[in-house]
């Protein structure tokens, strides 16, 4: 899922400084699961902003909504009937949600209430770690199900590098060396010979190099 983290409240307060009637919009997708932008976080942010504004003698009216998803038009449409009664929207969905909402409701300013960090997993309750960089050319079949692009700080395809020490990465001693993980996993699987296959120079054109990406499924388009 997409992992996000709440922005400092002072940053959000600065964004909405000149507004007195806003919507805080959460999303029931990924950001609900990573406790950054769901219904509960909407309520917490709303309470925090209200307290700050009342304390400063500039009370604010806040409407709290949480959409099924902010990355699909049909759910955004569910709030269209009242959106324009407000001066601004603080969206605590991921960056995609914030942008899609800004696209759909063009007449009012849209502010992000969270930072979108990465595609990752819930490693333990309250702990999320990155697993995928959406490079667009999955190589997990070659590397024991461990992504060298994401898990290796240098995104090496034929690692490890000389900075791997006792299973840790030179970038950060708490970080596992991605290639050590790959080696260990392939060893467990009895497939160490796979390491002898040289993975060719990466074609980054499927990644971010060509600008924002697009997928069209002709069988699904209307």
């Amino acid at each position, binding site marked *: 899922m997409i992992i996000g983290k709440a922005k400092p*409240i*002072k940053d959000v307060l600065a964004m909405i400084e000149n507004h007195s009637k806003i919507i805080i919009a959460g999303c029931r997708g990924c950001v609900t699961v990573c406790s950054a932008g769901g219904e509960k976080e909407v309520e*917490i942010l709303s309470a925090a902003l209200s*307290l700050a504004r009342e304390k400063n003698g500039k009370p604010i009216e806040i409407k709290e909504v949480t959409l099924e998803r902010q990355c699909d038009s049909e759910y955004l449409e569910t709030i269209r009937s009242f959106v324009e009664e407000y001066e601004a929207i603080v969206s605590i969905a991921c960056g995609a949600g914030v942008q899609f909402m800004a696209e759909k409701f063009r007449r009012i300013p849209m502010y992000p209430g969270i930072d979108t960090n990465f595609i990752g997993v819930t490693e333990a309750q309250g702990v999320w770690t990155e697993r995928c960089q959406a490079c667009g050319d999955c190589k997990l079949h070659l590397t024991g199900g461990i992504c060298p692009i994401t898990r290796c700080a240098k995104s090496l395809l034929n690692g490890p590098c000389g900075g791997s020490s006792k299973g840790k990465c030179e970038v950060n001693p708490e970080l596992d060396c991605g290639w050590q993980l790959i080696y260990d996993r392939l060893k467990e699987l009895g497939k160490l010979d796979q390491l002898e296959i040289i993975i060719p120079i990466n074609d980054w054109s499927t990644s971010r190099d060509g600008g924002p990406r697009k997928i069209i499924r002709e069988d699904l388009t209307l």
Partner: protein
Amino acid sequence: MRLSYPTNIKIIQVPCTGKVDVLYLLKAFQRGADGVYVAGCMEGDCHFLTGNLRARKRVEYAKKILDEVGIGGERLEMYNMSAADGPRFVEVAKEMTEKIKKLGPNPIKLCAGAASEENTQKKTDGVA
């Protein structure tokens, strides 16, 4: 043991402090409480094992938010005490009340400004 504790304290019962949510704490301040404290069982004595430990973490998180919004995290505290220790309950109640009296009323009430004096007065007593 007919002990008395400050009358301005409003007790909100929960089955375990593990039920206390960050939102409950923030909403208490939104509704005008001058201070809030969570009274949990002694650490290690939670009937549900970790309810009071979770509550402490949530209190810490809410304190951070209160600091960020200018209400002041010091208005919120977590205490651990045994349900069988009445004198300690009274001691904490007095300690917290004194502390909050020194800090003064919830800043949102002071800033209400135009709000009627009478209305403000009513809320000033609320230490939840």
